[in-house]
């Protein structure tokens, strides 16, 4: 039996609130499957399971506040088709746990600290629901806005039963309101009796601001930053985009950001000491170039979901990945691993941004790259001055992991790649 615990989703994230189970006891899960949705300071995050097995028990009901490390569910790893059985994490359980001989064994009773759940007898069989996860929701992904999730949780409405009218069929707040007006709501799950705010749901700009402030305070306190900047001419990059986009329908067009992302990823692959994490006094290189793409949210706030293996993906694929990540960051539906995977963060200020950004590293990462707005400036080409589109490229590096010489090589390499944008 393996305990599945509330994962840490960032340097300064301490807790979340369970808003939805996507699985039920008896369900077989694979590594990476989304099993729950947790409301955090960074909005609604889809929580993935880290090992294969069969869900033996859902320990906490919907609505529970979950400090990082809380046991959320128990998995029977022995039921998974794996030669080695997963072992439980180091912290011992607070009470004896009966180990069932097989997946079909009855689930253990809820821990004493948990409030008894309505209709759940002390020794509940695996099929006995904790918070009655709706079949539709458990069957697949339900895309919904954070506000819609919050309202649905408040009203006890299963998101999977609501017809979504938002982008890509996402459930919107209005859909939930309409659904709750149509049908009398099922009784909401038993509220936890534990003290404290049990259900602070939804994307809360004030909470996100606190999370950002906490992470950035830690960064400024702990990381000896150095800063570099390079002005990059982007004539070649813009020409490439114009040529490529001219024959394409709008949904297939590329944004400059895709080129910037690709150039950065390729350059990072050559300067590995800027791509990874500072942990316990040591640098740990990333297991790939996973770029956290800084995405501003409507209503304030910032989230940087990972674009994995960005150095290995062609331009069109990168653009699609970026669109998908930004859409989910804004609509809800970011996975927990996408918040913890990034080995570096990249921020592009875009067409309406400032000319340059002096980045603050997102711990435990060791570098951050910034792109300013493209502006037309006097530029010397072949001894003559002419107007050219240029952009200010910046880097903040962690002096514990690298120095300005290596950081400079990264910026020069990004510049070089952008001058050869036709080959990107």
């Amino acid at each position, binding site marked *: 039996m393996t305990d599945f615990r509330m994962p840490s989703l960032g340097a300064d994230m301490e807790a979340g609130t369970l808003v939805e189970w996507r699985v039920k006891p008896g369900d077989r899960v694979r590594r990476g499957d989304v099993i729950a949705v947790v409301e955090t300071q960074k909005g609604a995050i889809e929580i993935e399971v880290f090992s294969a097995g069969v869900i033996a028990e859902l320990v906490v009901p919907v609505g529970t506040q979950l400090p990082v490390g809380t046991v959320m569910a128990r998995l029977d790893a022995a039921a998974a088709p794996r030669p080695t059985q997963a072992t439980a994490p180091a912290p011992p359980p607070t009470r004896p746990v009966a180990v069932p001989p097989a997946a079909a064994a009855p689930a253990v009773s809820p821990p004493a600290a948990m409030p008894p759940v309505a209709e759940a007898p002390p020794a509940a069989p695996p099929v006995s629901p904790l918070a009655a996860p709706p079949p539709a929701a458990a069957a697949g992904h339900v895309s919904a806005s954070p506000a819609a999730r919050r309202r649905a949780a408040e009203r006890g409405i299963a998101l999977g039963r609501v017809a979504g009218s938002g982008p890509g069929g996402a459930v919107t707040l209005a859909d939930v309101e309409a659904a709750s007006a149509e049908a009398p709501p099922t009784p909401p799950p038993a509220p936890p009796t534990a003290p404290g705010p049990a259900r602070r749901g939804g994307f809360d700009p004030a909470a996100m601001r606190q999370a950002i402030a906490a992470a950035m305070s830690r960064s400024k306190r702990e990381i000896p930053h150095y800063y570099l900047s390079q002005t990059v001419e982007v004539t070649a990059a813009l020409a490439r985009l114009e040529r490529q986009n*001219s024959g394409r329908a709008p949904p297939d067009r590329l*944004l400059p950001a895709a080129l910037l992302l690709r150039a950065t990823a390729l350059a990072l692959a050559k300067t590995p000491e800027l791509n990874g994490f500072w942990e316990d006094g040591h640098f740990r290189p990333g297991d790939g170039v996973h770029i956290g793409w800084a995405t*501003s949210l409507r209503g304030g706030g910032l989230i940087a979901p990972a674009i994995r293996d960005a150095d290995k993906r062609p331009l069109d694929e990168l653009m699609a990945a970026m*669109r998908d990540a930004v859409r989910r960051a804004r609509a809800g539906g970011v996975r927990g691993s996408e918040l913890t995977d990034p080995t570096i963060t990249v921020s592009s200020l*875009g*067409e309406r941004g400032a000319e340059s950004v002096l980045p603050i590293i997102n711990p435990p990462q060791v570098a951050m790259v910034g792109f300013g707005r493209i502006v037309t400036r006097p530029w010397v080409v072949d001894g003559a001055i002419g107007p050219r589109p240029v952009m200010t490229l910046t880097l903040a590096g962690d002096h514990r992991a690298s120095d300005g010489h290596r950081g400079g090589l990264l910026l020069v390499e990004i510049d070089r790649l952008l001058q050869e944008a036709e080959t990107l």
Partner: protein
Amino acid sequence: MNKAEAKALIFEVLLGIAPEAELDRLPGSAQLRDELDLDSMDFLDFVAAVHERTGIDIPEVEYGKLATLDDAVAYLAR
């Protein structure tokens, strides 16, 4: 498409991108991107959604012709 239809379609698409926007109060001459805080990705989503519903291609070089609500209505209703 007449102007009323064009405006309705534009509102519908914009609400999908900026759900909190009070479009009825949006002056026809206001810059959409500034007024609704649309970044490059938002504007691409806007153009792509209009394209998917109307079949109008809207080449990149003509993005400037959709800068304001009045401009965009005129562009689609032409």
